[in-house]
């Protein structure tokens, strides 16, 4: 209303934030179009990984643990990336690795969010002794580097996949707890939560309808970051030989099993690259997720660039 005062005041004529309404699909499309190349690259890579993980059995030329008579076969037509120390096809194991390594990391991250997220929101709403108890317990758990803690627990309980998932998820849930408590606290103090309490709404409604929708964006970004961390931790454990155990195809263990080949770089460069392939597969996915999260954080925080 450039001259509203002259024309008399009208509430409906007041200009809100200039913001055109779009459908969800249009919004997503617009978001994608404005994404920087790094984020687009990241999203492409993630989709490719998901595709390989879902259709591993159809895409892999050989079985996951199928053993051929030639160990350390060179790269060639039969075995594109050669075979490993037992005579298993490296390419097939790489493809199955997408399913195993990424799948386990996703499951762990989800579990960590389930535990940490629900505790975090509960602590933020109840405060008082509940909050104190959980927060102090988390402080203690976080006082030891989580890799070290994981090593202690693995040495006690043994390195099985369910153990790994639970151990890493519990340790990582501490970080999720911290962030979800912090973001929920920001929402809990809002007047609209107080308004809901004054209306007489129950705790469940307040959690579900008032708080959860407002803490989703930071939690989604955090999910990406936590996934990277979990993924790297599991890869490191497997690489150290105390994570995912053979014969399951897994990138961390594949690096370890074929690491010796790197000595032969001057004679056969492809042999030296064999252990690098799974390592690069890990690195590429983490880079991709980080790029997407970086863009998402930048967008949702509304950070402004200096000129």
């Amino acid at each position, binding site marked *: 209303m*450039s001259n509203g*005062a002259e024309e008399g005041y009208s509430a409906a004529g007041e200009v809100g934030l200039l*913001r055109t309404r779009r459908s969800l699909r249009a919004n997503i499309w617009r978001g994608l179009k404005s994404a920087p190349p790094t984020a687009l690259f990241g999203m492409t890579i993630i989709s490719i990984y998901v595709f390989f993980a879902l259709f591993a059995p159809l895409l892999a030329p050989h079985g996951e643990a199928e053993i051929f008579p030639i160990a350390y076969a060179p790269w060639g037509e039969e075995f594109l990336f050669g075979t490993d120390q037992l005579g298993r096809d490296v390419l097939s194991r790489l493809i199955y690795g997408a399913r195993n390594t990424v799948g386990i990391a996703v499951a762990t991250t989800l579990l960590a969010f389930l535990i940490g997220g629900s505790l975090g929101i509960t602590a933020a709403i109840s405060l008082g002794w509940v909050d104190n108890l959980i927060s102090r317990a988390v402080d203690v758990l976080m006082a030891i580097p989580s890799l070290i803690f994981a090593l202690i627990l693995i040495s006690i309980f043994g390195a099985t996949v369910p153990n790994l998932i639970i151990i890493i998820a519990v340790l990582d849930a501490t970080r999720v707890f911290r962030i979800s408590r912090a973001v929920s606290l920001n929402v809990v103090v809002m007047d*609209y939560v107080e308004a809901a309490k*004054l209306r*007489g*709404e129950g705790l469940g409604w307040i959690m579900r309808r008032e708080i959860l*929708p407002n803490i989703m964006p930071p939690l989604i970004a955090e999910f990406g970051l936590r996934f990277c961390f979990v993924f790297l931790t599991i890869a490191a454990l497997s690489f150290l030989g105390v994570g995912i155990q053979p014969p399951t195809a897994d990138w961390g263990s594949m690096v370890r099993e074929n690491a010796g080949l790197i000595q032969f770089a001057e004679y056969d460069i492809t042999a030296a690259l064999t252990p690098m392939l799974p390592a690069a597969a890990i690195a590429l996915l983490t880079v991709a997720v980080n790029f997407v999260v970086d863009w998402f954080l930048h967008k949702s925080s509304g950070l402004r660039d200096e000129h």
Partner: protein
Amino acid sequence: MSVDHKGQIGDVLLEMRGIVIDGYSDDRWHEIIKGVDVVLKRGEIMGVIGESGAGKSTLGLAAMGFAQPGCKINGGSIIFDGIDLMKASEDEKCKLRGSRIAYVAQSASASFNPAHRLIDQTIESAVRHGIMPENEAKADARKLYRDLQLPDPDSIGERYPHQVSGGQLQRVMTAMAMSPRPDLIIFDEPTTALDVTTQVEVLAAMREIVENYNTAAIYITHDLAVVAQMADVIKVLRYGETVEDADTRKMLTNPEKEYTQSLWSVRSIVKEEEVSQDIVLKVDRVDASYTGSVKVLDDVTIEVPRGHTVAVVGESGSGKSTAARAITGLLPPSKGQILFNGEPLPPALKDRSIEQLQKIQMIYQMADTAMNPRHTVRDIIGRPLEFYLGLRGKERDQRLLELLNMIELDDSFIDRLPAELSGGQKQRICIARALAANPDLIICDEVTSALDQIVQKGILQLLLRLQEEFGLTYIFITHDIATVKAISDQIVVMLEGRVVEQGMKSEILAPPYPDYTKLLLSSVPEMDPDWLTGLLKERAKEQPPV
């Protein structure tokens, strides 16, 4: 030029022509300032006034050749005393800033470096620019502290910023600006963050010192009554454009543009007070405290007559919002009781019945935070309809539209999110949400203080009309006396958790006043350039300096 200006007004000091400034937001550049001219003479004080988003601060910084991060000066010329700031190098501008042009920011507590003593920060520019040697500058700073009536002027400079109060810090910042004896000071909303009684002291100190040293100033504020005390000329800014330029007295008595008039439009609402004996809510000798130690409410009694408005006034920390929390049950009283329609209410929120909750509704100061940003208008207003009245589907939507009509909005708003509404529209939706419950009593907690003047007027008129139509009762919590005059029947004055005075509007706003009420009322700036001068004379008469 105001008649009581003691200094000399000389030749042109600052000349800004056709200033264009762009700001970056929402992934693109917008024009914030669209070709504004400023001409300021030596010793002259220009008030720049406008509502939020008018571009006042951006313009003020541009007078120093400075653009905040995310902004750039894109056009026009800035000539300061013959120096072209648009062409000057960063080095040359550094030499001017803090020596010949100084700046006083809104938030003093954030603008002082926490790691240095006040006096070192005060004299920093004067010493850096070689205007005075250090010990001379320190002596001068102490003199300035004394001029600004700071307590312990000889030692206050040895303190750190967190060790002094906000009002004192604001005065130290004025001393800091004055230390290099600049030709021009930019004051950017220097008293906005202060309580009204503190504001008067700071205002008086600033005016005195600026006039004594004959310094030119640009005084930026949204409050016309404040700027009227300071400025010789006033510039009204809106959407980055000049609305009107005029001499202060002319601007107040005879503004050319209707928009200018709307800047004090709240003051034009008149409400006749009415007496009533039908008490809907009684706060009966209530004590309350947060941690069990300090009482935040001390023996508070408030009676609220049905169909009328009780305004609760006081400064920050007076306990006026706490009283609302006690009434709603968020802070159960430690002593006394709250009677609603003659029945005692359970002290704690969780013990109250749905009907009891339904009959008392609340509207908040910040409509932004009072609505869930993820809920549409339909969710926001619809929820109490479902929750209290059990309305569903068509019936609910029918009632929703009626409510939207009552608050003067149409059905195109029904699916909007809060982010798609203006400030005034948001507050209207909050009013509709309260109305949806069919309440007897609505508590309005500073509901207009975050809004621009013209929008405030619209909201207050709406509330008055709804009161007339539906016989609503309001408890109106505010610190703004103009709002109180506009809307209340009765007034309760609070100080430090106690009720200082209570009665009909006509009784409270007329002499004889108790001391505090008088201080509070007399500290509210009036639309009269002589108000501050008159007030200071009167106060000096009553309390001769020791």
